């Protein structure tokens, strides 16, 4: 039986400050899919993720997430932003940050519940940083920060996970672990989208790949990454539609 669609995009054009970064995007992602987004910097990977999360309103086209407008499904969705967008100098401990993942489930004025505490403990265990729970976040390495953000994402126990370069600053062994963990979540019915630069990792783990360059230039199983024509389209500077597509993605 075919799984219901979790994400549906039709004719989406989006960008920043009037500039177009992605155009003519049609995409359907079904429950339990494990999808990689690849492409050069500025190709629109982050832009596409932000449109799905509801952080960025597209100029045109329709976006449905859990059959609702984006942003309405926040309780079912967790997004892992690029790590440099977070204030790592704050006086917080690792567990405080992971606990933030539970805030979408709680009402203002309420402290953390037992369920919140145990979700945090489980998430810390899954990314193997239980021993860092009480560590101040300004004392973490790049790879540890990435695990903390991932743990926060997992603590939300979301139906849909959107991760923007979760493997940045992480050693290859850890990256391998992260990707199998995400694949495992997908095989348990979670839907997972990951923007990444690691093509070898994509080939090893992901059943579906979206190649991006100002839009989706190819969509298929990992074997499309062995296709020279597709790789040229994705990375070769054949940017469809002219110079406005070369616009840098906003990371601020």
């Amino acid at each position, binding site marked *: 039986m075919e799984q219901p669609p979790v994400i549906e995009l039709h004719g989406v054009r989006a960008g920043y400050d009037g500039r177009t970064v992605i155009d003519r995007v049609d995409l359907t992602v079904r429950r339990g899919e494990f999808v990689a987004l690849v492409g050069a910097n500025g190709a629109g990977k982050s832009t596409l993720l932000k449109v799905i999360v509801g952080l960025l309103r597209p100029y045109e086209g329709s976006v449905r997430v859990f059959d609702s407008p984006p942003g309405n499904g926040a309780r079912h969705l967790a997004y892992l932003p690029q790590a440099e*967008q977070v204030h790592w100098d704050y006086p917080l401990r690792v567990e405080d940050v992971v606990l933030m993942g539970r805030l979408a489930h709680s009402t203002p004025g309420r402290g953390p519940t037992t369920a919140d505490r145990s979700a945090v403990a489980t998430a810390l265990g899954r990314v193997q940083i239980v021993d860092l729970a009480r560590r101040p976040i300004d004392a973490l390495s790049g790879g540890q920060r990435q695990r903390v953000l991932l743990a926060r994402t997992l603590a939300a126990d979301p139906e849909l996970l959107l991760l923007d370069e979760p493997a940045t600053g992480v050693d290859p062994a850890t990256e391998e672990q992260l990707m199998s963990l995400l694949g495992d979540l997908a095989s348990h019915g979670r839907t997972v989208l990951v923007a990444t630069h690691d093509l070898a990792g994509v080939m090893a783990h992901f059943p579906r790949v979206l190649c991006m360059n100002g839009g989706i230039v190819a969509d298929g199983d990992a074997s499309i990454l062995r296709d020279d024509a597709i790789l040229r389209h994705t990375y070769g500077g054949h940017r469809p539609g002219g110079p406005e597509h070369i616009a840098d993605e906003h990371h601020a």
Partner: protein
Amino acid sequence: MPDPFEPLQYAFVQRALLAAVLVALVCASVGVFVVLRGLAFLGDAIAHAAFPGVVIAFLLKVNIVLGGSVAAVLSALAIGAVARRSGLKEDTAIGVVFSGMFALGIVLFSSIRTFTGDLLGILFGDVLGVATDQLVVGSVTAAIVLAALWIIWRQLVFVSFDPIGAAAAGLNTLRYDTLLLGLIGLAIAVSVQIVGVVLVVAMLVTPAATARLVARDLRTLVVVALALAVGSSVAGIWLSYYVNAASGGTIVLVATTLFGVVWTVRSVARSRAAAA
């Protein structure tokens, strides 16, 4: 050796102490966010912008804390709106709004003659002149600010720490930012009577900044900031009674001295740790 409890026999000193402790609690807890988010200039600006509200309240013969609150909160929201809508940087928006409001206060003020004695009080604080009705309004305002902070604390921390992540998790970041600006405005309005327009920012920033030097987690930051603020206020009033100096200035000087001491001790400790 003078009797340390001598000042306490006067009702005006009791009222002053109570008011100063209230202000310390409110300012230090709001100040945690002012320091974490780098809003010191905004705080200073809002304090100056409260001035015309105080003058208008005086003219209309209503409570001046109320007048100050309205002007402070309105200008805090105006700064947020100008920065968002004009495309100008926030510090530019702050500069425009606060100097305009302060100028309005000066023009209004200069048109009335009977005000002279109270001007110094508004600009530099007059904690020993706190009247009972001001204390009541101040306490209610302080209670509102503390209760609001208590309720939205975790959300405010998330929104400050990681605005994008918070928005993705479904938090309305604009609403929380606006609430924070409003709370800063209210905190300033209750404090103007104690330390005055010019020094209010010190109550907001200095205790939390000192705490930030030593705290590795948020709970410690808040507890240390509150303790330093209350300690500076009580010690400042007590000292000012004996040296017969302006109490607002004395409170701020005590807080500043504590910052200097903590910073020095920390620097020495760090260089020793580095040498070892």
